[in-house]
């Protein structure tokens, strides 16, 4: 089976390519990448005017299976991912039961294979039952296929446990991913603490609740010589800590969500439950710090924190509503419209954030299109006008703060292992 992708503009930062290239795909792998390839037997796909990139990877997704299949299944999440331009996703372990043992890991891997779509890489729990007390069987889960560990959604309160897991995971070469929030300090907050929480009378979470935990994790990673990845970083001072720690040689990486670079706490106005998530939408100064960090490389990856919720958990009183928003089907367009179009970052940086860096952090052996590599490819149309509409979502949930937004730029084709999963050129 041969496929010839012709006339596209290839962006492959790992190989320093930024120009027109043809790609020949044979049996699911990249065979040749050249300025002009002619092949009589290959099926030709014309990508003139479009951008071609190594497949995008969302390293922070919540599939709700097992446990909450009403909000998302492995299958529906995979379909949403490919529609949104992703070829691989890493799924967080806060399912019910949680992915804290090899059998759940294997269940997820098996289900994902059965549905034949994007690659699904499970992330295992740090602690047994996500309770934050004792380590889960991380080694067993690595055998099952996990690519990292996290108690995401439940920050690791115990510094002793975090220290232990940062040391223990060194022998597997996988990162520890932490949702950084000092829970004592964040308390029962539902929005960022500041003028908005004051005006609306909502309980606030101080931004230093993130900063403190990032600082702690950085200190522990340095001391333990482990690898820490900060999930969904959202504050100026949290980013300052990452920048400083990396300057000292600590193995620290971080990701940001599209909602934290597109929105501020002002979106909570009118008590919209779709503007409620953790970490909360922050101030404009924090958002500007996020943009600067996307630009200067402090932020390694864009990850959605895709958190589908059934409408009955969102269509309630604001402070009772579930935390979290969906993101798989809006992330790429938001990044193109809010980051590339206004020239905050260029296309090479965008591809690094969506593909090269997440692949490196999770050791996926992806994020590059050289001969012999998997033919996981994302095709982008920078001119495509899109409107975010709930009725077009393939996710089972609709809890997006971007409904009705009109954006320029979209992923129009997704190939995984040389197979076309999605084509809306």
């Amino acid at each position, binding site marked *: 089976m041969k496929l010839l992708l012709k006339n596209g503009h290839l962006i492959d930062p790992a190989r320093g390519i930024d120009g027109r290239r043809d790609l020949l795909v044979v049996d699911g792998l990249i065979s040749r990448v050249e300025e002009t390839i002619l092949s009589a037997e290959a099926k030709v796909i014309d990508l003139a005017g479009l951008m071609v990139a190594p497949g995008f990877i969302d390293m922070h997704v919540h599939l709700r299976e097992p446990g909450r299949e009403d909000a998302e299944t492995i299958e529906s999440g995979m379909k949403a991912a490919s529609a949104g331009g992703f070829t691989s996703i890493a799924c967080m372990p806060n399912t019910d039961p949680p992915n804290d043992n090899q059998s759940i890991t294997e269940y997820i891997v098996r289900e994902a294979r059965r549905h034949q779509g994007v690659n699904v890489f499970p992330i295992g729990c740090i602690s047994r039952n996500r309770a934050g007390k004792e380590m889960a069987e991380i080694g067993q889960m690595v055998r099952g296929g996990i690519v990292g560990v996290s108690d995401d959604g439940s920050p690791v309160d115990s510094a002793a446990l975090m220290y232990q897991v940062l040391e223990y995971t060194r022998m597997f070469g996988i990162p520890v991913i932490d949702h950084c929030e000092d829970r004592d300090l964040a308390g029962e907050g539902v929005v960022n603490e500041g003028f908005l929480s*004051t005006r609306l*009378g*909502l309980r606030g979470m101080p931004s230093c609740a993130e900063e403190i935990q990032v600082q702690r994790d950085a200190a522990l990673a340095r001391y333990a010589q482990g690898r820490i990845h900060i999930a969904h970083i959202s504050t100026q001072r949290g980013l300052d800590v990452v920048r400083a720690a990396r300057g000292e040689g600590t193995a620290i990486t971080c990701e940001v969500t599209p909602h934290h670079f597109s929105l501020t706490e002002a979106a909570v106005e009118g008590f919209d439950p779709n503007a409620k998530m953790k970490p909360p939408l922050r101030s404009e100064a924090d958002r500007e710090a996020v943009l600067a960090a996307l630009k200067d490389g402090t932020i390694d990856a864009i990850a959605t924190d895709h958190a589908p919720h059934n409408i009955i958990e969102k269509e*309630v009183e604001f402070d009772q509503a579930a935390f979290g928003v969906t993101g798989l089907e809006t992330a790429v367009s938001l990044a193109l419209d809010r980051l590339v179009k206004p020239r905050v970052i260029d296309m090479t940086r965008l591809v690094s954030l969506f593909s090269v860096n997440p692949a490196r952090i999770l050791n996926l052996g992806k994020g590059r299109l050289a001969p012999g590599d998997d033919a996981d490819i994302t095709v982008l149309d920078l001119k495509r006008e899109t409107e975010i509409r709930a009725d077009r979502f393939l996710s089972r949930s609709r809890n997006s703060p971007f409904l009705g937004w009109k954006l320029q730029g979209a992923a129009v084709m997704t190939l995984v292992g040389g197979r076309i999963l999605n084509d809306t050129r």
Partner: protein
Amino acid sequence: MEATQESQNRWKHKDLLGIEPLEAAEIRMILEAAKSFAEISRRPIKKVPILRGRTIINLFYEPSTRTRSSFEIAEKRLSADTLNFSSSGSAMSKGETLLDTARNLEAMSPDMIVVRHRSPGTAKFLADRLRPAVINAGDGAHEHPTQALLDAFTILQKKDRIENLRIVIVGDILNSRVVRSNLFLLNKLGAKVTLVGPPTMMPKEVERLGARVSWNLDEALEGCDVIMMLRIQKERQSAAGFPSHREYFRLFGLTQERVRRAQEDVIIMHPGPMNRGVEIATEVADGPLSVILEQVTNGIAVRMAILYLLAGGSASEITT
């Protein structure tokens, strides 16, 4: 020309969700209308047929004696049919969602729903989804517009003006919906407000709502015209932001001695319920400068005015 004038005398909104979205003229219209209704409560027969045939539901998710009774009396004096739903012994305690409860009530065709809930934004949540007019009777720490309006009515009764009055509000500013509604209202009508309390009870950047902030009650009271004391939530002491009631009273309790720092004709207000000896000394609460019970009386007139205007009544032709 006349048509324009007439429209200025009518309520433009479907609901009353808070003071923040209102214009000063709309606030004045309510306060003006309330004067006409105050008189009814002084009659031997305290009932007029203005809302005859209308149905009003009082949906109270939080315990409330004062506000709920005040609304109920206001509704009855206007001859409306009223229904009380409170959080115990109904569907609300059986796990039904707020929206389902509200839609079921809506299906009974009420004209208005008065709602009290502990979550900020709940009145708006219902107003956006239901046909009947919604009146916010307190949503968490967000707004309590009818309280601010009855406070303003009481101040006007005693002072004839609000503009340029120096008003000191003391206590748990962080958790108070009364403060937020009062701040919006008093600023729109030109008063100068000082908020007093420990830093732990001051929400972030509250100055931006238009207030001076002080941690020193004695200094803040100097020459002020109105003192508004807030309730300290005794049941929440652990997270309250002060170590003991004794220390709180020492720093922020209103005593006779402290009252002397204010203008001679200062008035002392409290939205209730009071904690005597915690935020206010008994002799001050019961003293000649206290207007606390007048606030309660005025609450009925103000709520009658609001119900009347929301039902479509004109402020220029109230015939009671």
